[in-house]
């Protein structure tokens, strides 16, 4: 579908597409949104039409009412008639879409255990990368998926309640500040959106998920490792082991809905930690990181 047709459909009836396990319908008449979504989500499968269509999240991004639109334009995020957030400057429309969709899933998809972490996969084995801010989690994730690892998510580990496997939800990777240039240099082929400046997190840009990850979004994987990355300027790459109980507690604290899932969530989390290598990884160079991840014994 050419951009012009995509934009007019987006403005008119909206476009519904599959993002991993979810179907999202997006409506927007904002040209910047049409262009950005086309660039980042153009390869995602379109949802069924007519009586066979089931949409999980009806979203729209609009200008809002009033004259403000002409001197200080803003973007409003609307979820099925509700506005869970205050509007943001128009330049932040794409990050707002990502935040908003995260919010929808995190606040109402309790049929999965949802953990704030990146997830990548190779040879059918997934690695969860949970991390505090500044740990370089997104950069590491972007680096790995640029070198053949499959992207599951850079924000949201979605764990199946039924069997503890991770469910892919490949979406654009949020890059912040200097990571944007690092990724442009590291992977010149990467598709990276326009930058949004002056967000809460500084300058943000979104890197499109690799095509293969989008194509294989229905292939789940078992969790082989839980690795806490820590970027430390000048440090030699070093992998050390980590307490399983503390890893479990950290994941519980950094889960969006662990507290909602009760005893089932606990059991799932305890089994997850039990069956996975729990490690801490300090690094300063992306190439080292990729080499060490590629060589992980339990992945072969």
């Amino acid at each position, binding site marked *: 579908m050419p951009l012009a047709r995509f934009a007019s459909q987006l403005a008119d009836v909206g476009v519904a597409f599959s993002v991993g396990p979810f179907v999202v319908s997006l409506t927007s008449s904002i040209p910047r949104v049409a262009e950005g979504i086309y660039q980042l989500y153009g390869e995602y499968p379109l949802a069924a039409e007519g009586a066979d269509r089931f949409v999980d999240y009806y979203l729209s991004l609009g200008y809002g009412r009033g004259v403000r639109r002409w001197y200080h334009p803003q973007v409003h995020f609307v979820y099925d008639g509700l506005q869970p957030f205050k509007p943001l400057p128009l330049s932040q429309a794409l990050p707002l879409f990502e935040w908003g969709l995260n919010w929808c899933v995190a606040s109402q*998809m309790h049929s999965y255990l949802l953990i704030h972490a990146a997830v990548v996969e190779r040879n059918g084995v997934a690695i969860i990368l949970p991390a505090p801010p500044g740990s370089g989690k997104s950069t590491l994730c972007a680096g790995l998926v640029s070198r053949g690892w499959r992207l599951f998510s850079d924000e949201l580990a979605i764990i199946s309640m039924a069997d503890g496997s991770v469910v892919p939800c490949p979406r654009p990777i949020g890059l912040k500040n200097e990571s944007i240039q690092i990724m442009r240099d590291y992977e010149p082929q990467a598709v990276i959106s326009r930058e949004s400046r002056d967000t809460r997190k500084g300058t943000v840009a979104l890197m499109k998920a690799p095509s293969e990850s989008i194509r294989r979004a229905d292939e789940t994987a078992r969790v082989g490792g839980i690795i806490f990355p820590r970027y430390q300027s000048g440090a030699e790459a070093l992998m050390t082991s980590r307490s399983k109980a503390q890893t479990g507690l950290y994941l519980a604290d950094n889960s969006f809905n662990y507290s909602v899932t009760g005893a089932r969530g606990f059991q799932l989390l305890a089994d997850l930690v039990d069956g996975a290598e729990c490690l801490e990884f300090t690094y300063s160079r992306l190439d080292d990181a990729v080499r060490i991840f590629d060589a992980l014994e339990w992945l072969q």
Partner: protein
Amino acid sequence: MMAQPLLCEVLIDPERAKGLSLQQWDLLIRQARHADLLARLAYLLEGQSGVPTAAQRHLDSAWTFAQRQAQSVRYEVASIQKALSDLGIPVVLLKGAAYIMAGLPAAPGRLLSDIDILVPKPCLERVENGLLLYGWRTTHHDEYDQTYYRQWMHEIPPMKHGVRGTVIDVHHAILPPTARLKPDSSKMLVAAVALAAEPGVCVFSPVDMVLHSATHLFHEGELEHGLRDLVDLDALLRHFGDQSGFWEQLVERAVALDLVRPLYYALRYTAQMVATPIPPFVVKALDKLGRPSALISSLMDCLFARALRPSHVSCDSQWTALARWMLYIRSHYLRMPFHLLFPHLIRKAVKKRQGSGSLTEPIVVKE
């Protein structure tokens, strides 16, 4: 006559969900979510074959949430019991918390945002102090709000637990003292029934529970939850309606407590919206005792038929917002004489406008 929303059709007869297309399931889930009835729907459809996976995932999610919330209610009630048991004051749980603790059929899938309790008015200060001692803090630090609550309301400002963040609304009556109807809440306190599991904690007797739910729905003006409240009433009436003498007592009690009119509306609209079976003799008795004039009656039918639909865009007509607004004004008017009400509503409207810019930032994904 407006078409019945799909959600109401399925609430009345869960079998109706069989054979829905995916697109209809999509609509059903959205209506139920907006009406705060998604977990209730999950309960009603439990074990039914043919629910598509895409819809089941949302039902499971809501059910998980409701179950966890019910557990948290049990924990909170135990904490309240601990905080207040030494005072020897009867504490009556109201609405959602009462249904959950009493294990009533209205409980499964019932969501709530806070725990409501009723205590005798003379004990209010001791209750407040007891809760403060166990970690609850007052909210609404604005002096106007504090004074407004304490002078005109039937509850004190909500209290929030400092660690858990859970909220208790402490009531001393079921309606404000200025309300046109004058139910004697102390009569309801006396008739309350103790919970076996929590010494000192009670719930209303069956008839009072129904009357309170009806009064709440038709006087509080929160009609976005209107359908949810009708579903509560439906479950209570179907459950208690089988007990011998219940319906006779219900009408008698409504007369004794000055709550005939809310009961009249409650039975009328549960029957209309969710097909609650009401014995004909009750309908006849209430027609005689509580039916408003023909003009008011048709106006109310017209307003409630719109306002009680699920608060979802698919159920809204151009008149829905107006109907909800008129009923909101009505609820305030019923609670307070106009010379007191008017300045208050203006103040609320001004505060709302001032506050509208400070909704939560999208700080949801933790950094």
